[in-house]
């Protein structure tokens, strides 16, 4: 008697402990004999209910369960993946030709050609400059296009010509930022920058013009000059720096710079060597200058856009 009872209880417990996946089975049955199943809404594009009535308070514990699960699984998975990658990658790297090995396949006729004839063919002692502007000039064109592209997309994100187009939420955030700014300019910074900026520009010019014959070139020079401009703007403030650089001038410089580059390079390519051969030896300097202009504008533009959202 008791035994049977206990057996029954155990059975009950079992059933309670292991509930069978009700909805899937029911759905299947309904599907087969054709009555409206639970997941019918999926077929009829009805919006999920739970989205409608949920008052959201961000809280780890209350966060969507499957989201948490996803992140947990994600962490484990990525860690394992990285570990695997580490080992494989390290192994591969260890089997490569060792560091500074003269017999490595990378030291083939290509660098030899660049080094021996580069100067004669391009007129630049700095072989790296020679390479990036003539031998592999197309990559560099693409590279400066990347800069230009990045600047354009940052403008697309952050440029504010007038406050009217800004959403209220964002406007509040901006006012907060404005409140944080110091009201008065720091005297020392202002004076020092007034003294330093010309020298920085001078140095930038030197690096720019020396790019053919010594380490340097358009990219580094542009970075240096933009550092000078950024310092100036930071010291005297956006309004005052209008004198040095306003939006029109900014647009003109970066457009003209990149245009010069693209056009020159295009001409050079379309001439296909031949008489272009003579051209290339004189091509590096103007292209270098153009790149310098582009880089300078880009860096400065980044700073300006990030700080105030206007140029």
């Amino acid at each position, binding site marked *: 008697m008791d035994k049977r009872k206990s057996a029954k209880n155990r059975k009950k417990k079992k059933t309670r402990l292991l509930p069978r996946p009700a909805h899937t089975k029911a759905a299947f049955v309904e599907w087969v004999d054709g009555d409206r199943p639970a997941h019918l809404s999926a077929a009829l594009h009805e919006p999920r209910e739970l*989205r409608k009535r*949920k008052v*959201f308070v*961000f809280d780890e514990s209350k*966060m*969507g369960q499957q*989201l948490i699960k996803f992140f947990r699984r994600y*962490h484990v998975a*990525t*860690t394992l993946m*990285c570990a695997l*990658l*580490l080992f494989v*990658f*390290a192994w591969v*790297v*260890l089997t490569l030709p*060792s*560091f*500074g*090995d*003269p017999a490595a396949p*990378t030291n083939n006729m290509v*660098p*030899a050609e*660049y*080094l*021996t*004839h*580069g*100067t004669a063919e391009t007129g630049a*002692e*700095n*072989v*790296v400059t020679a*390479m*990036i502007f003539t031998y592999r000039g197309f*990559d560099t064109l693409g*590279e*400066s296009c*990347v*800069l230009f*592209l*990045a*600047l354009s997309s*940052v403008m697309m*994100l*952050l440029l504010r010509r007038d406050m009217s187009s800004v*959403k209220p*939420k*964002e406007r509040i*955030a*901006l006012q907060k930022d404005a409140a944080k700014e110091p009201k008065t300019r720091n005297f020392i910074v202002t004076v020092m920058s007034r003294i330093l900026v010309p020298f920085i520009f001078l140095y930038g010019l030197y690096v720019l013009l020396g790019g053919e*014959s*010594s*380490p340097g070139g358009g*990219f580094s020079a542009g970075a240096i000059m933009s550092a000078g401009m950024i310092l100036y703007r930071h010291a005297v403030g956006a309004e005052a720096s209008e004198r040095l650089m306003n939006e029109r001038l900014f647009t003109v410089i970066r457009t003209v710079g990149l245009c010069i580059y693209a056009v020159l390079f295009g001409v050079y390519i379309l001439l296909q060597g031949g008489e272009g051969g003579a051209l290339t030896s004189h091509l590096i300097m103007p292209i270098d200058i153009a790149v310098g202009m582009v880089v300078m504008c*880009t860096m400065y533009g*980044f700073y300006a856009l*990030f700080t105030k959202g206007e140029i």
Partner: protein
Amino acid sequence: MMSFLNTLVQHRYAITATILFVVGLMNLMQQRYLVRKVIGFNIMDAAIFLLLASRGYVEGRMAPVVAEGTAERAAELYINPVPAGLVLTGIVVSVSVSAFSLALIQKIYREYGSSDIKELVHLVKRED
């Protein structure tokens, strides 16, 4: 064992680059805060550039700025300039990309007041 250590020493830069790369990767994938993700991405790129640059070096040779009259022996005197050029390109690219992603993060922060990817995913889920 010695030989293994020897190999390690020979490939010191490459190994460093590997470790850095994986560190950057983990940051990019696992950090919750977006700026940290960007930093992770930068570490990753730096690792790649380190590897690439270390490929170019040749024992006991000089930087590839060809001095007067050394042109014909240049191939033995100077290191391989190709990786340097590639690294230069790569650096510029990574600068632009990080600028873009930072701008994006700034915008998102102004939109939602948060830069935590989990929270953002949830906030976005709540929309539509």
